């Protein structure tokens, strides 16, 4: 009964410092194992933008099914009775989100923040992020794959097109990096 009257000593809330990231080569090695396991067990590599694509088409199919049925690119995913979400890559991209949450939580890195160069405002960064995302999303569909589905997966199984694609991505980014240095440095 004595303890009940006393206020429990305020537990000092530890501000959790985010743990450091793993060494790039170790991260790469683990990513390589995941990539190998994906190919070895399922025959498919990894993917991300394909899943995002199908979420978009799912929404489109809810709003304007006739339009989807008349657009050949969308038709293959959601024409008629097809459910665009009934595909492995949709499930995989949901897994990516979960994995990111769990890792961020375990390592104390879930924090509402904006990562940006020191010389721009948050708003500028957000606008650039949206613009870059739109460009990236467009390019990824044109190239039939993003960094995961084309570069990583296609690279590991030695697809000729994926290797050329990979150099194009780095080429495009390096070509513009100097012009945009103000945004990152």
């Amino acid at each position, binding site marked *: 009964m004595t303890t009940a009257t006393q206020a429990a000593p305020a537990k000092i809330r530890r501000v959790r410092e985010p743990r450091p990231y793993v060494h790039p080569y170790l991260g790469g090695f683990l990513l390589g194992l995941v990539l190998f396991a994906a190919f070895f067990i399922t025959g498919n590599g990894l993917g991300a933008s394909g899943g*995002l694509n199908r979420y978009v088409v799912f929404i489109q199919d809810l709003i304007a099914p006739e339009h989807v049925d008349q*657009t050949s690119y969308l038709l293959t995913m959601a024409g008629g009775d097809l459910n665009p979400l009934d595909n492995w890559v949709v499930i995989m991209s949901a897994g*990516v989100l979960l994995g990111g949450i769990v890792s961020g939580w375990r390592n104390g890195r879930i924090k509402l923040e*904006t990562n940006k160069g020191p010389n721009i405002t948050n708003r500028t960064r957000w606008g650039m992020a949206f613009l870059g995302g739109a460009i990236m999303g*467009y390019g990824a569909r*044109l*190239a039939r794959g993003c960094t995961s589905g084309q570069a990583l997966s296609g690279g590991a199984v030695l697809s000729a097109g994926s290797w050329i694609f990979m150099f194009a991505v780095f080429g495009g980014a390096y070509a513009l990096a100097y012009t945009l240095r103000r945004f990152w440095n």
Partner: protein
Amino acid sequence: MPLFPLPLNTLIGTLGTYAVYLVIGFAFGYVLEISGFGNSRKLAAQFYFKELTVLKVMFTAIVVAMVLIFLASAIGLLDYNLVWVNPTYWWPGIVGGLIMGVGFIVGGFCPGTSIVAAATAKIDGIFFLGGVFFGIFLFGETVGLYEPFFNSSYAGRLTLMDWLNLPTGVVVLGVVLMALFMFWGSEQLERIFGQRDLTKEPRTRLYGAGALVLVAVAVLFIGQPTNADKWTRIAPERQAQLDARAVQIHPGELLTLQEDRRLSIRVLDVRDEASFNLFHFTDAEHLPLATLAEEVPALLLAPANTVFVLVSNDEAAATEAWKLLTAEAVPNVYILEGGINYWLYLFDDGIGDYDPALFTAGDDSLRHPFDAALGDRLPAARPNTHSVDLKFEPKVKLELKRGPSGGGCG
């Protein structure tokens, strides 16, 4: 047939398969996050030579997965033909890649990493992800304007080995050495532009590099299985099918299948050109046995509802072709029973005579006299199924396509 990749749908059903993909996706997201790919500054630093994390993580992952895949294939654990190789579309890939590079430096992420960034509450990641959705939407709405370009410069399942005309082991070792050289270069750049102290880098990375080279050399020396090796491995099971005549379909079954609109029937005529010119079926594709192996990558990309029917004069060449394709894991391959000789006997009985004993014993020559090369200008090239009453025992069982049906981002 190699055990892997597993026929997941048959083994554990759709839900089980999806659970596997969920676990793989989870591991993927987890590893991206611990590598720092949720942080746009870390990603963008790649392009200012301060910290080449992107390149190191990506290429380490690629070479590690690559050596393991080709090692597993070399020792017969994994069937490389059942592994999804992104089909090559040269120009859409290059232009799309350049556009993505621009998006990368403007936005600081790629689609996969932005999911992880959003998962850890990075506001810029959330905006980027919103942008990706918008860009994808825009693409779906505008690709119709330039569909011919989107589908142009198609090269199919083209690997670096095919393209460079080099053995697999050489390419694998070459890629490993190139990656190691790039890692060395990256570290030098980090030293110069990022003031990184290389003496503090773990020594383990050198052992890792050594191990990669060793495995790549092992892949080179073991070599990839040839078509004959693959056949030897599956022969006990598959030769029994041939002997039991379980894959030789009656002409009547072929005609019936051709009327089934849910199926895509591809008749592959494997005879020499002279026989093909004398007579062949309407819609038959001429793929002589000698060059059939080159067509395998294209056949592997056929939709899941495709049934291949191999045709020769008797059955000898078609049986050889069947062994070749089956060993290469092409699904749903059948042989036309009795070949062209039996076919003409049934549907053009003005010509020749046919002894069923010659099905397998025949010398595979065309035993019907033709005055001219008629090609498919003979009614028997496309007989009217309703005018003949054929009794046959159906043998075709459509097998679920094992392995992948489409690419990660497809």
